[in-house]
């Protein structure tokens, strides 16, 4: 099992917060690129394929960069 474990992890001791932000950033870049190329919005799956990641992970990563606007900064319009 130690073997499997070494195989599965690549000794990544960076924080999840940073890794999520990186993924979100890459996802947004892919989105822009695909929008320019196909002149339509890519779906989550298209982005996930490009990043070679499950859709669910891409979507959760995108979440990490949104500020919960409503909760902390009431908007006055």
């Amino acid at each position, binding site marked *: 099992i130690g073997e499997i474990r070494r195989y599965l992890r690549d000794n990544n001791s960076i924080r999840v917060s940073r890794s999520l932000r990186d993924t979100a950033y890459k*996802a947004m870049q892919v*989105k822009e690129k695909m929008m320019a190329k196909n002149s339509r*919005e*890519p*779906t*989550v*799956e*298209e*982005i996930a*394929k490009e990043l070679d990641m499950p*859709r*669910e992970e*891409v*979507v*959760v990563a*995108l*979440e*990490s960069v*949104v500020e*919960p*606007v*409503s*909760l*902390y900064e*009431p*908007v*006055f*319009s």
Partner: protein
Amino acid sequence: MKPVNEMSVSLLSCSSNEAFARAAVSAFIAQLDPTVDELCDIKTAVSEAVTNCIVHAYRDTIGVIYITCRLYEDGGIVVKIRDKGCGIEDIEQAMQPLFTTQEGERAGLGFAVMQSFMDKLRVTSKPGKGTTVTMKKTMERRPKQNG
């Protein structure tokens, strides 16, 4: 119509869980393969509903927020957000844009946002018992991609 898939989450009404609620709903809806924009609309609506549970329903306390999410064959999504908090006396008034019971702190636009970002919004409530917000939206159908 029977949903093709459904899930439910319950979480505590601390503000740190607001992001979790959004992430959980988006991770589930990802199955329908929405665009980032479609996902954003739903997340914004969920955000408003969950925030209301935190700041209104359980104002001076921590309670449980119950979220159910159902996916339908036609691309329809129903999200239900329920609390056992203080409830709403006058729902019609509460849903008016700019109406708020926390003048100066909040903008009174939560329900207006939910209404505009989702296709359907239904609010039921019993003062002292709690509130249920049910939101519906149908994703644009797109041809199934291979793989």
